[in-house]
Protein backbone atom coordinates (compact mmCIF):
# COMPACT_ATOMS: atom_id res chain seq x y z
CA UNK A 1 0.00 0.00 0.00
CA UNK A 2 2.62 2.55 1.11
CA UNK A 3 4.98 1.35 -1.63
CA UNK A 4 2.35 1.78 -4.32
CA UNK A 5 1.37 5.24 -3.06
CA UNK A 6 4.99 6.38 -3.07
CA UNK A 7 5.60 4.70 -6.44
CA UNK A 8 2.66 6.57 -8.00
CA UNK A 9 3.60 9.85 -6.29
CA UNK A 10 7.20 9.44 -7.45
CA UNK A 11 6.30 8.78 -11.07
CA UNK A 12 3.78 11.67 -11.12
CA UNK A 13 6.40 14.06 -9.75
CA UNK A 14 8.88 12.85 -12.34
CA UNK A 15 6.35 13.41 -15.13
CA UNK A 16 5.49 16.89 -13.78
CA UNK A 17 9.17 17.83 -13.68
CA UNK A 18 9.77 16.45 -17.20
CA UNK A 19 6.86 18.19 -18.85
CA UNK A 20 7.80 21.37 -16.97
CA UNK A 21 4.61 21.62 -14.95
CA UNK A 22 6.60 22.21 -11.79
CA UNK A 23 8.64 24.96 -13.41
CA UNK A 24 5.56 26.59 -14.95
CA UNK A 25 3.67 26.51 -11.63
CA UNK A 26 6.55 28.06 -9.69
CA UNK A 27 7.21 30.73 -12.33
CA UNK A 28 3.53 31.60 -12.60
CA UNK A 29 3.18 32.01 -8.85
CA UNK A 30 6.40 34.02 -8.52
CA UNK A 31 5.69 36.36 -11.41
CA UNK A 32 2.12 37.14 -10.39
CA UNK A 33 3.07 37.55 -6.74
CA UNK A 34 5.97 39.92 -7.55
CA UNK A 35 3.78 41.93 -9.91
CA UNK A 36 1.15 42.38 -7.19
CA UNK A 37 3.70 43.34 -4.56
CA UNK A 38 5.07 46.17 -6.66
CA UNK A 39 1.73 47.23 -8.07
CA UNK A 40 0.45 47.44 -4.49
CA UNK A 41 3.40 49.37 -3.14
CA UNK A 42 1.81 52.77 -3.84
CA UNK A 43 -0.72 53.04 -0.97
CA UNK A 44 1.65 52.12 1.88
CA UNK A 45 2.86 55.62 2.48
CA UNK A 46 -0.66 56.90 2.83
CA UNK A 47 -1.92 54.18 5.16
CA UNK A 48 1.20 53.82 7.25
CA UNK A 49 1.24 50.02 7.01
CA UNK A 50 4.27 47.94 6.05
CA UNK A 51 4.44 46.73 2.46
CA UNK A 52 4.41 43.05 3.44
CA UNK A 53 0.98 43.32 5.08
CA UNK A 54 -0.41 45.17 2.10
CA UNK A 55 1.10 42.58 -0.23
CA UNK A 56 -0.45 39.67 1.66
CA UNK A 57 -3.87 41.22 1.14
CA UNK A 58 -3.35 41.28 -2.62
CA UNK A 59 -1.69 37.85 -2.59
CA UNK A 60 -4.81 36.46 -0.88
CA UNK A 61 -6.93 37.64 -3.77
CA UNK A 62 -4.40 36.27 -6.25
CA UNK A 63 -4.48 32.88 -4.52
CA UNK A 64 -8.25 32.69 -4.67
CA UNK A 65 -7.99 32.70 -8.46
CA UNK A 66 -4.65 31.05 -9.12
CA UNK A 67 -4.49 28.14 -6.63
CA UNK A 68 -7.76 26.56 -7.86
CA UNK A 69 -6.69 27.09 -11.47
CA UNK A 70 -3.30 25.43 -10.96
CA UNK A 71 -4.90 22.57 -9.05
CA UNK A 72 -7.44 21.94 -11.80
CA UNK A 73 -4.74 22.08 -14.47
CA UNK A 74 -2.75 19.45 -12.57
CA UNK A 75 -5.69 17.15 -11.91
CA UNK A 76 -8.09 17.32 -14.84
CA UNK A 77 -6.42 14.47 -16.75
CA UNK A 78 -5.61 12.45 -13.63
CA UNK A 79 -8.06 9.67 -14.52
CA UNK A 80 -9.29 10.43 -18.04
CA UNK A 81 -5.72 10.97 -19.29
CA UNK A 82 -4.69 7.48 -18.21
CA UNK A 83 -7.91 6.09 -19.67
CA UNK A 84 -7.34 7.85 -23.00
CA UNK A 85 -3.73 6.68 -23.23
CA UNK A 86 -4.84 3.14 -22.49
CA UNK A 87 -2.53 2.83 -19.51
CA UNK A 88 -5.34 2.76 -16.96
CA UNK A 89 -6.53 -0.86 -17.50
CA UNK A 90 -2.93 -2.06 -17.19
CA UNK A 91 -2.35 0.01 -14.05
CA UNK A 92 -5.51 -1.40 -12.48
CA UNK A 93 -4.42 -5.01 -13.02
CA UNK A 94 -1.47 -4.46 -10.71
CA UNK A 95 -1.86 -5.63 -7.10
CA UNK A 96 -2.63 -2.19 -5.72
CA UNK A 97 -5.86 -0.39 -4.92
CA UNK A 98 -7.47 2.44 -6.84
CA UNK A 99 -7.36 4.39 -3.59
CA UNK A 100 -3.57 4.06 -3.47
CA UNK A 101 -3.24 5.22 -7.09
CA UNK A 102 -5.36 8.31 -6.46
CA UNK A 103 -3.62 9.02 -3.15
CA UNK A 104 -0.24 8.87 -4.90
CA UNK A 105 -1.37 11.32 -7.57
CA UNK A 106 -2.87 13.67 -4.97
CA UNK A 107 0.30 13.66 -2.87
CA UNK A 108 2.44 14.51 -5.89
CA UNK A 109 0.12 17.31 -6.97
CA UNK A 110 -0.17 18.76 -3.45
CA UNK A 111 3.63 18.81 -3.23
CA UNK A 112 3.82 20.70 -6.52
CA UNK A 113 1.26 23.25 -5.30
CA UNK A 114 3.08 23.60 -2.00
CA UNK A 115 6.36 24.14 -3.80
CA UNK A 116 4.92 26.71 -6.21
CA UNK A 117 3.15 28.62 -3.44
CA UNK A 118 6.03 28.61 -0.97
CA UNK A 119 8.65 29.62 -3.52
CA UNK A 120 6.43 32.18 -5.26
CA UNK A 121 5.16 33.85 -2.10
CA UNK A 122 8.47 33.46 -0.33
CA UNK A 123 10.22 35.45 -3.05
CA UNK A 124 7.38 38.00 -3.16
CA UNK A 125 7.42 38.34 0.64
CA UNK A 126 11.16 38.84 0.65
CA UNK A 127 10.92 41.46 -2.06
CA UNK A 128 8.16 43.30 -0.17
CA UNK A 129 10.16 43.25 3.05
CA UNK A 130 13.27 44.57 1.36
CA UNK A 131 11.33 47.28 -0.46
CA UNK A 132 8.92 48.44 2.22
CA UNK A 133 9.58 46.68 5.52
CA UNK A 134 7.66 43.99 7.41
CA UNK A 135 5.72 43.78 10.66
CA UNK A 136 5.19 40.67 12.79
CA UNK A 137 1.56 40.54 11.69
CA UNK A 138 2.66 40.71 8.08
CA UNK A 139 4.96 37.70 8.49
CA UNK A 140 2.24 35.80 10.33
CA UNK A 141 -0.25 36.56 7.54
CA UNK A 142 2.20 35.40 4.89
CA UNK A 143 2.79 32.13 6.72
CA UNK A 144 -0.94 31.63 7.08
CA UNK A 145 -1.27 32.16 3.35
CA UNK A 146 1.41 29.55 2.67
CA UNK A 147 -0.35 26.76 4.54
CA UNK A 148 -3.95 27.62 3.68
CA UNK A 149 -3.34 28.05 -0.06
CA UNK A 150 -2.37 24.37 -0.55
CA UNK A 151 -5.58 23.42 1.30
CA UNK A 152 -7.58 25.46 -1.18
CA UNK A 153 -5.58 23.84 -3.99
CA UNK A 154 -6.21 20.35 -2.59
CA UNK A 155 -9.96 21.03 -2.53
CA UNK A 156 -9.78 21.75 -6.26
CA UNK A 157 -7.52 18.76 -6.93
CA UNK A 158 -10.34 16.57 -5.60
CA UNK A 159 -12.81 18.42 -7.81
CA UNK A 160 -10.48 17.96 -10.81
CA UNK A 161 -10.11 14.19 -10.26
CA UNK A 162 -13.86 13.84 -9.76
CA UNK A 163 -14.60 15.60 -13.05
CA UNK A 164 -11.86 13.55 -14.70
CA UNK A 165 -13.51 10.38 -13.42
CA UNK A 166 -16.76 11.38 -15.06
CA UNK A 167 -15.15 12.02 -18.45
CA UNK A 168 -14.23 9.52 -21.12
CA UNK A 169 -11.94 12.04 -22.79
CA UNK A 170 -9.43 14.53 -21.46
CA UNK A 171 -10.95 17.28 -23.58
CA UNK A 172 -14.28 16.84 -21.80
CA UNK A 173 -12.50 16.82 -18.45
CA UNK A 174 -10.67 20.05 -19.38
CA UNK A 175 -13.92 21.78 -20.31
CA UNK A 176 -15.56 20.64 -17.08
CA UNK A 177 -12.57 21.86 -15.07
CA UNK A 178 -12.72 25.32 -16.61
CA UNK A 179 -16.46 25.44 -15.94
CA UNK A 180 -15.91 24.42 -12.31
CA UNK A 181 -13.32 27.18 -11.88
CA UNK A 182 -15.58 29.80 -13.44
CA UNK A 183 -18.58 28.80 -11.36
CA UNK A 184 -16.93 28.29 -7.96
CA UNK A 185 -14.38 31.09 -8.10
CA UNK A 186 -16.01 33.79 -10.21
CA UNK A 187 -19.74 33.35 -10.76
CA UNK A 188 -20.55 32.10 -7.25
CA UNK A 189 -19.38 35.36 -5.67
CA UNK A 190 -21.16 37.45 -8.28
CA UNK A 191 -24.33 35.46 -7.67
CA UNK A 192 -24.43 35.80 -3.91
CA UNK A 193 -23.36 39.45 -4.03
CA UNK A 194 -26.16 40.11 -6.49
CA UNK A 195 -28.60 38.36 -4.16
CA UNK A 196 -27.25 40.44 -1.29
CA UNK A 197 -27.98 43.67 -3.13
CA UNK A 198 -31.43 42.43 -4.18
CA UNK A 199 -32.27 41.25 -0.63
CA UNK A 200 -31.35 44.63 0.84
CA UNK A 201 -30.67 43.53 4.40
CA UNK A 202 -33.38 40.85 4.76
CA UNK A 203 -33.26 37.22 5.92
CA UNK A 204 -30.90 36.25 3.13
CA UNK A 205 -28.31 38.76 4.25
CA UNK A 206 -28.44 37.79 7.91
CA UNK A 207 -28.83 33.98 7.67
CA UNK A 208 -28.23 32.53 4.23
CA UNK A 209 -25.40 34.69 2.95
CA UNK A 210 -22.84 33.82 5.69
CA UNK A 211 -23.51 30.11 5.24
CA UNK A 212 -23.16 30.34 1.46
CA UNK A 213 -19.92 32.27 1.87
CA UNK A 214 -18.38 29.73 4.24
CA UNK A 215 -19.59 26.80 2.11
CA UNK A 216 -17.47 27.87 -0.88
CA UNK A 217 -13.81 26.89 -0.45
CA UNK A 218 -12.53 30.00 -2.23
CA UNK A 219 -14.57 32.33 0.00
CA UNK A 220 -13.71 30.32 3.12
CA UNK A 221 -10.05 30.74 2.20
CA UNK A 222 -10.52 34.49 1.79
CA UNK A 223 -12.25 34.81 5.16
CA UNK A 224 -9.58 32.76 6.97
CA UNK A 225 -6.83 34.95 5.57
CA UNK A 226 -8.56 38.29 5.78
CA UNK A 227 -10.02 38.10 9.28
CA UNK A 228 -7.54 38.01 12.12
CA UNK A 229 -4.95 39.95 10.22
CA UNK A 230 -4.40 43.62 9.79
CA UNK A 231 -5.06 43.06 6.15
CA UNK A 232 -8.72 42.84 7.13
CA UNK A 233 -8.98 46.57 7.21
CA UNK A 234 -7.71 46.70 3.68
CA UNK A 235 -10.02 44.14 2.23
CA UNK A 236 -13.47 45.72 2.19
CA UNK A 237 -15.90 45.90 5.04
CA UNK A 238 -16.79 42.25 4.70
CA UNK A 239 -15.62 41.42 8.20
CA UNK A 240 -18.45 43.42 9.69
CA UNK A 241 -20.88 40.84 8.38
CA UNK A 242 -18.86 37.86 9.39
CA UNK A 243 -17.22 38.04 12.77
CA UNK A 244 -15.01 35.57 14.59
CA UNK A 245 -17.47 32.68 14.61
CA UNK A 246 -17.57 32.39 10.85
CA UNK A 247 -13.79 32.70 10.76
CA UNK A 248 -13.63 29.36 12.58
CA UNK A 249 -16.37 27.96 10.40
CA UNK A 250 -14.34 29.01 7.36
CA UNK A 251 -11.24 27.28 8.64
CA UNK A 252 -13.30 24.13 9.19
CA UNK A 253 -14.73 24.48 5.68
CA UNK A 254 -11.23 24.89 4.25
CA UNK A 255 -10.09 21.68 5.95
CA UNK A 256 -13.25 19.70 5.15
CA UNK A 257 -13.30 20.64 1.47
CA UNK A 258 -10.10 18.80 0.43
CA UNK A 259 -11.06 15.77 2.53
CA UNK A 260 -14.54 15.67 1.07
CA UNK A 261 -13.63 16.36 -2.56
CA UNK A 262 -10.82 13.80 -2.53
CA UNK A 263 -13.16 11.28 -0.93
CA UNK A 264 -15.77 11.85 -3.63
CA UNK A 265 -13.04 11.53 -6.27
CA UNK A 266 -12.09 8.17 -4.74
CA UNK A 267 -15.68 6.92 -4.94
CA UNK A 268 -15.99 8.07 -8.57
CA UNK A 269 -12.66 6.42 -9.46
CA UNK A 270 -13.67 3.15 -7.76
CA UNK A 271 -16.77 3.04 -9.93
CA UNK A 272 -14.92 3.92 -13.12
CA UNK A 273 -15.35 1.12 -15.67
CA UNK A 274 -12.42 0.80 -18.03
Amino acid at each position, binding site marked *: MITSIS*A*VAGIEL*RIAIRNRWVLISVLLMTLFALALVFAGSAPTGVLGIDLLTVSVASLTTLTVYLAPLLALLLSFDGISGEAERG*SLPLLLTYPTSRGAILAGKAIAHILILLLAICIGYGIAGLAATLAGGASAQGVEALLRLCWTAPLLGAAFLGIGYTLSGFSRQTSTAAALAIAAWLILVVLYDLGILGALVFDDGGVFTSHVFPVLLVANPADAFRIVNVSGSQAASLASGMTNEIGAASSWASLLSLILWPALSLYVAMIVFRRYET
Partner: protein
Amino acid sequence: MNSGRLTVENACKKYGRQEVLQDVSLSVFAGERVALLGHNGAGKTTLIKLILGLTGLTGGTIDVFGHPTGSDGARRTAAYLPETVNFHGMLTGREQLRFFARLAGESGKQVDGVLEKVGLASAADKRIGTYSKGMRQRIGLAQVLMRRPQLALLDEPTSGLDPISRRTFYDLVDELAQAGTAVFVSSHALTELEARTDRIHIMASGKLVAAGSLDALRKEAGLPTRITVKAVHEKADAVAAKLGGERVNCSSVQLTFGADEKLDRISAIAGLEKGLVEDVDLAPPSLEDLYRHFTAKGDGSDHIN
Protein backbone atom coordinates in the same frame (compact mmCIF):
# COMPACT_ATOMS: atom_id res chain seq x y z
CA MET B 1 -11.33 -24.25 -6.72
CA ASN B 2 -8.12 -25.42 -8.26
CA SER B 3 -4.94 -23.54 -7.58
CA GLY B 4 -3.15 -24.89 -10.65
CA ARG B 5 -5.25 -23.29 -13.35
CA LEU B 6 -7.50 -20.55 -14.59
CA THR B 7 -11.10 -21.69 -14.62
CA VAL B 8 -13.90 -19.79 -16.30
CA GLU B 9 -17.33 -21.28 -15.67
CA ASN B 10 -20.49 -20.16 -17.49
CA ALA B 11 -19.23 -16.59 -17.69
CA CYS B 12 -21.84 -14.10 -18.88
CA LYS B 13 -21.52 -10.39 -19.45
CA LYS B 14 -24.20 -7.93 -20.41
CA TYR B 15 -23.72 -4.25 -21.19
CA GLY B 16 -27.21 -2.90 -20.75
CA ARG B 17 -29.37 -5.33 -22.71
CA GLN B 18 -26.62 -6.40 -25.04
CA GLU B 19 -25.15 -9.80 -24.26
CA VAL B 20 -21.44 -9.56 -24.99
CA LEU B 21 -20.54 -12.90 -23.52
CA GLN B 22 -22.80 -15.92 -23.22
CA ASP B 23 -22.06 -18.92 -21.09
CA VAL B 24 -18.33 -19.19 -21.73
CA SER B 25 -16.45 -21.96 -19.94
CA LEU B 26 -12.78 -22.79 -20.33
CA SER B 27 -9.64 -23.50 -18.37
CA VAL B 28 -5.95 -22.82 -18.86
CA PHE B 29 -3.37 -24.89 -17.01
CA ALA B 30 0.07 -23.93 -15.80
CA GLY B 31 2.64 -24.10 -18.58
CA GLU B 32 0.02 -24.23 -21.30
CA ARG B 33 -0.26 -21.89 -24.28
CA VAL B 34 -3.89 -21.32 -25.15
CA ALA B 35 -5.11 -19.14 -28.00
CA LEU B 36 -8.37 -17.25 -28.17
CA LEU B 37 -9.57 -16.49 -31.69
CA GLY B 38 -12.50 -14.48 -32.93
CA HIS B 39 -13.61 -11.51 -35.01
CA ASN B 40 -13.43 -8.03 -33.58
CA GLY B 41 -16.37 -7.71 -31.26
CA ALA B 42 -16.62 -11.46 -30.66
CA GLY B 43 -15.99 -10.87 -26.96
CA LYS B 44 -12.28 -11.69 -26.66
CA THR B 45 -11.25 -8.50 -24.92
CA THR B 46 -14.33 -8.62 -22.69
CA LEU B 47 -13.41 -12.14 -21.59
CA ILE B 48 -9.85 -11.06 -20.79
CA LYS B 49 -11.10 -8.03 -18.86
CA LEU B 50 -13.44 -10.27 -16.89
CA ILE B 51 -10.58 -12.60 -16.01
CA LEU B 52 -8.55 -9.60 -14.84
CA GLY B 53 -11.46 -8.28 -12.81
CA LEU B 54 -11.45 -4.99 -14.74
CA THR B 55 -15.16 -5.37 -15.28
CA GLY B 56 -17.72 -7.39 -13.36
CA LEU B 57 -19.43 -10.65 -14.37
CA THR B 58 -23.15 -10.67 -14.98
CA GLY B 59 -23.21 -14.42 -14.37
CA GLY B 60 -20.90 -17.37 -13.77
CA THR B 61 -17.60 -17.59 -11.92
CA ILE B 62 -13.93 -17.09 -12.70
CA ASP B 63 -11.21 -18.58 -10.57
CA VAL B 64 -7.63 -17.43 -11.11
CA PHE B 65 -5.33 -20.08 -9.68
CA GLY B 66 -7.40 -20.37 -6.52
CA HIS B 67 -8.22 -16.66 -6.22
CA PRO B 68 -11.56 -15.08 -7.11
CA THR B 69 -11.28 -12.68 -10.05
CA GLY B 70 -10.54 -9.09 -9.12
CA SER B 71 -9.09 -10.03 -5.73
CA ASP B 72 -5.64 -8.94 -4.65
CA GLY B 73 -4.45 -12.54 -4.96
CA ALA B 74 -5.74 -12.77 -8.52
CA ARG B 75 -3.99 -9.54 -9.43
CA ARG B 76 -0.76 -10.82 -7.96
CA THR B 77 -1.16 -13.98 -10.05
CA ALA B 78 -2.00 -12.54 -13.45
CA ALA B 79 -0.04 -10.20 -15.72
CA TYR B 80 -1.69 -8.39 -18.60
CA LEU B 81 -0.60 -6.99 -21.94
CA PRO B 82 -3.37 -4.76 -23.35
CA GLU B 83 -4.08 -4.55 -27.06
CA THR B 84 -3.01 -0.95 -27.43
CA VAL B 85 -0.68 0.09 -24.72
CA ASN B 86 0.54 3.63 -24.44
CA PHE B 87 2.74 4.79 -21.65
CA HIS B 88 3.50 8.34 -20.64
CA GLY B 89 5.76 9.74 -23.33
CA MET B 90 7.82 11.74 -20.86
CA LEU B 91 9.17 8.68 -19.05
CA THR B 92 11.98 6.46 -20.24
CA GLY B 93 11.47 2.74 -20.74
CA ARG B 94 13.59 1.96 -17.72
CA GLU B 95 11.66 4.37 -15.48
CA GLN B 96 8.36 2.93 -16.62
CA LEU B 97 9.46 -0.62 -15.85
CA ARG B 98 10.92 0.36 -12.46
CA PHE B 99 7.56 1.92 -11.65
CA PHE B 100 5.74 -1.31 -12.56
CA ALA B 101 8.22 -3.33 -10.51
CA ARG B 102 7.52 -1.19 -7.45
CA LEU B 103 3.76 -1.46 -7.98
CA ALA B 104 4.10 -5.23 -8.14
CA GLY B 105 6.06 -5.09 -4.90
CA GLU B 106 9.34 -6.14 -6.44
CA SER B 107 12.78 -4.65 -6.06
CA GLY B 108 13.28 -3.73 -9.71
CA LYS B 109 16.65 -5.41 -10.07
CA GLN B 110 15.26 -7.62 -12.83
CA VAL B 111 14.45 -4.54 -14.96
CA ASP B 112 17.78 -4.47 -16.80
CA GLY B 113 17.64 -8.16 -17.65
CA VAL B 114 14.12 -7.90 -18.98
CA LEU B 115 14.96 -4.85 -21.10
CA GLU B 116 17.84 -6.83 -22.58
CA LYS B 117 15.54 -9.75 -23.28
CA VAL B 118 12.98 -7.74 -25.25
CA GLY B 119 15.75 -5.96 -27.14
CA LEU B 120 15.33 -2.52 -25.61
CA ALA B 121 18.60 -2.32 -23.68
CA SER B 122 19.99 0.42 -25.91
CA ALA B 123 16.75 2.44 -25.90
CA ALA B 124 16.11 1.99 -22.17
CA ASP B 125 17.05 5.56 -21.27
CA LYS B 126 15.24 7.23 -24.15
CA ARG B 127 11.79 8.66 -23.63
CA ILE B 128 8.90 6.39 -24.54
CA GLY B 129 7.51 9.28 -26.59
CA THR B 130 10.27 8.61 -29.12
CA TYR B 131 9.53 4.84 -29.34
CA SER B 132 7.90 3.11 -32.30
CA LYS B 133 4.70 1.14 -31.80
CA GLY B 134 6.65 -2.09 -31.76
CA MET B 135 8.98 -0.78 -29.07
CA ARG B 136 6.08 0.30 -26.89
CA GLN B 137 4.56 -3.15 -27.31
CA ARG B 138 7.87 -4.63 -26.17
CA ILE B 139 7.78 -2.48 -23.02
CA GLY B 140 4.34 -3.98 -22.49
CA LEU B 141 5.72 -7.48 -22.89
CA ALA B 142 8.67 -6.62 -20.65
CA GLN B 143 6.37 -5.76 -17.75
CA VAL B 144 4.65 -9.13 -18.19
CA LEU B 145 7.97 -11.03 -18.24
CA MET B 146 9.29 -9.05 -15.28
CA ARG B 147 6.50 -10.26 -13.05
CA ARG B 148 7.10 -13.96 -13.80
CA PRO B 149 3.35 -14.45 -13.45
CA GLN B 150 1.44 -17.69 -13.02
CA LEU B 151 -0.96 -16.46 -15.67
CA ALA B 152 -0.20 -14.15 -18.60
CA LEU B 153 -3.10 -12.61 -20.50
CA LEU B 154 -1.98 -11.19 -23.82
CA ASP B 155 -4.59 -9.29 -25.83
CA GLU B 156 -3.68 -9.06 -29.53
CA PRO B 157 -0.02 -8.82 -28.57
CA THR B 158 1.52 -8.87 -32.04
CA SER B 159 -0.64 -6.32 -33.83
CA GLY B 160 1.72 -3.66 -35.10
CA LEU B 161 4.82 -5.83 -34.92
CA ASP B 162 6.90 -6.71 -37.96
CA PRO B 163 7.42 -10.42 -38.81
CA ILE B 164 10.84 -10.66 -37.15
CA SER B 165 9.57 -9.03 -33.96
CA ARG B 166 6.62 -11.41 -34.00
CA ARG B 167 8.94 -14.38 -34.01
CA THR B 168 11.04 -13.05 -31.14
CA PHE B 169 7.82 -12.25 -29.38
CA TYR B 170 6.57 -15.82 -29.59
CA ASP B 171 10.00 -17.14 -28.59
CA LEU B 172 9.65 -15.13 -25.37
CA VAL B 173 6.10 -16.39 -24.89
CA ASP B 174 7.36 -19.97 -25.29
CA GLU B 175 10.02 -19.29 -22.70
CA LEU B 176 7.38 -17.97 -20.35
CA ALA B 177 5.26 -21.10 -20.78
CA GLN B 178 8.28 -23.34 -20.30
CA ALA B 179 8.89 -21.63 -16.97
CA GLY B 180 5.39 -22.70 -15.95
CA THR B 181 3.26 -19.69 -16.82
CA ALA B 182 -0.20 -20.33 -18.21
CA VAL B 183 -0.33 -18.17 -21.35
CA PHE B 184 -3.67 -17.04 -22.71
CA VAL B 185 -3.32 -15.09 -25.93
CA SER B 186 -5.98 -13.56 -28.14
CA SER B 187 -5.11 -12.88 -31.74
CA HIS B 188 -6.08 -12.39 -35.34
CA ALA B 189 -2.77 -13.56 -36.70
CA LEU B 190 -3.76 -17.15 -37.35
CA THR B 191 -0.74 -18.51 -39.14
CA GLU B 192 1.71 -17.51 -36.42
CA LEU B 193 -0.46 -19.10 -33.74
CA GLU B 194 -0.75 -22.42 -35.55
CA ALA B 195 2.58 -23.79 -34.35
CA ARG B 196 2.75 -21.78 -31.18
CA THR B 197 -0.21 -22.95 -29.13
CA ASP B 198 -1.27 -26.09 -27.34
CA ARG B 199 -4.97 -25.43 -27.44
CA ILE B 200 -7.27 -23.09 -29.32
CA HIS B 201 -10.59 -21.51 -28.39
CA ILE B 202 -12.71 -19.90 -31.06
CA MET B 203 -15.31 -17.31 -30.18
CA ALA B 204 -18.13 -15.91 -32.30
CA SER B 205 -20.76 -13.41 -31.18
CA GLY B 206 -19.95 -13.83 -27.50
CA LYS B 207 -20.07 -17.62 -27.55
CA LEU B 208 -17.36 -20.23 -27.51
CA VAL B 209 -17.91 -22.17 -30.75
CA ALA B 210 -14.91 -24.49 -30.64
CA ALA B 211 -12.20 -25.57 -28.23
CA GLY B 212 -9.38 -28.09 -28.37
CA SER B 213 -5.98 -28.82 -29.83
CA LEU B 214 -5.41 -28.14 -33.51
CA ASP B 215 -5.73 -31.87 -34.27
CA ALA B 216 -8.90 -32.21 -32.27
CA LEU B 217 -10.40 -29.22 -34.06
CA ARG B 218 -9.46 -30.72 -37.42
CA LYS B 219 -11.19 -33.97 -36.50
CA GLU B 220 -14.23 -32.15 -35.23
CA ALA B 221 -14.50 -29.95 -38.30
CA GLY B 222 -13.97 -32.90 -40.68
CA LEU B 223 -12.55 -30.53 -43.28
CA PRO B 224 -10.86 -32.19 -46.25
CA THR B 225 -7.12 -32.64 -46.44
CA ARG B 226 -5.59 -31.71 -49.76
CA ILE B 227 -2.74 -33.43 -51.58
CA THR B 228 -1.27 -31.78 -54.63
CA VAL B 229 0.64 -34.19 -56.83
CA LYS B 230 2.97 -32.64 -59.35
CA ALA B 231 3.19 -35.00 -62.31
CA VAL B 232 6.09 -35.44 -64.69
CA HIS B 233 5.59 -33.56 -67.99
CA GLU B 234 2.56 -34.77 -69.97
CA LYS B 235 1.74 -37.46 -67.42
CA ALA B 236 -0.85 -35.48 -65.46
CA ASP B 237 -3.79 -37.23 -67.08
CA ALA B 238 -2.35 -40.63 -66.30
CA VAL B 239 -1.76 -39.69 -62.68
CA ALA B 240 -5.26 -38.25 -62.37
CA ALA B 241 -6.75 -41.43 -63.78
CA LYS B 242 -4.81 -43.69 -61.44
CA LEU B 243 -5.33 -41.70 -58.24
CA GLY B 244 -8.86 -40.54 -58.97
CA GLY B 245 -8.05 -36.88 -58.42
CA GLU B 246 -8.80 -33.69 -60.24
CA ARG B 247 -6.39 -32.13 -62.73
CA VAL B 248 -5.91 -28.47 -61.84
CA ASN B 249 -3.44 -27.51 -64.56
CA CYS B 250 -1.18 -29.15 -67.10
CA SER B 251 1.09 -30.72 -64.50
CA SER B 252 -0.76 -30.88 -61.15
CA VAL B 253 -3.42 -33.17 -59.76
CA GLN B 254 -5.34 -32.33 -56.63
CA LEU B 255 -6.80 -34.92 -54.26
CA THR B 256 -9.31 -33.85 -51.64
CA PHE B 257 -10.40 -36.31 -48.98
CA GLY B 258 -11.37 -36.76 -45.34
CA ALA B 259 -8.69 -36.91 -42.66
CA ASP B 260 -9.15 -40.68 -42.07
CA GLU B 261 -8.20 -41.53 -45.66
CA LYS B 262 -4.85 -39.83 -45.46
CA LEU B 263 -2.60 -42.89 -45.08
CA ASP B 264 -4.42 -44.81 -47.82
CA ARG B 265 -3.98 -41.94 -50.23
CA ILE B 266 -0.31 -41.54 -49.44
CA SER B 267 0.38 -45.23 -49.98
CA ALA B 268 -1.53 -45.07 -53.27
CA ILE B 269 0.77 -42.30 -54.43
CA ALA B 270 3.83 -44.19 -53.20
CA GLY B 271 2.62 -47.24 -55.10
CA LEU B 272 2.63 -45.51 -58.47
CA GLU B 273 5.22 -46.68 -60.99
CA LYS B 274 8.35 -44.64 -61.38
CA GLY B 275 8.48 -41.72 -63.81
CA LEU B 276 5.03 -40.36 -63.15
CA VAL B 277 5.30 -38.15 -60.07
CA GLU B 278 7.74 -35.33 -59.59
CA ASP B 279 6.63 -33.95 -56.19
CA VAL B 280 3.91 -34.26 -53.55
CA ASP B 281 2.56 -31.58 -51.28
CA LEU B 282 0.22 -32.42 -48.39
CA ALA B 283 -1.87 -29.69 -46.77
CA PRO B 284 -4.08 -30.49 -43.79
CA PRO B 285 -6.79 -27.87 -43.14
CA SER B 286 -5.05 -24.77 -41.88
CA LEU B 287 -6.05 -22.89 -38.78
CA GLU B 288 -7.54 -20.29 -41.07
CA ASP B 289 -9.76 -22.94 -42.71
CA LEU B 290 -10.82 -24.15 -39.27
CA TYR B 291 -11.42 -20.64 -38.08
CA ARG B 292 -13.63 -19.88 -41.07
CA HIS B 293 -15.47 -23.15 -40.58
CA PHE B 294 -16.26 -22.64 -36.92
CA THR B 295 -17.03 -18.92 -37.01
CA ALA B 296 -19.24 -19.33 -40.08
CA LYS B 297 -21.16 -21.97 -38.14
CA GLY B 298 -21.36 -19.60 -35.20
CA ASP B 299 -22.68 -16.43 -36.74
CA GLY B 300 -23.16 -16.97 -40.42
CA SER B 301 -20.42 -14.66 -41.61
CA ASP B 302 -17.01 -15.74 -42.77
CA HIS B 303 -14.88 -12.63 -42.93
CA ILE B 304 -11.86 -12.12 -40.76
CA ASN B 305 -11.71 -8.80 -38.87
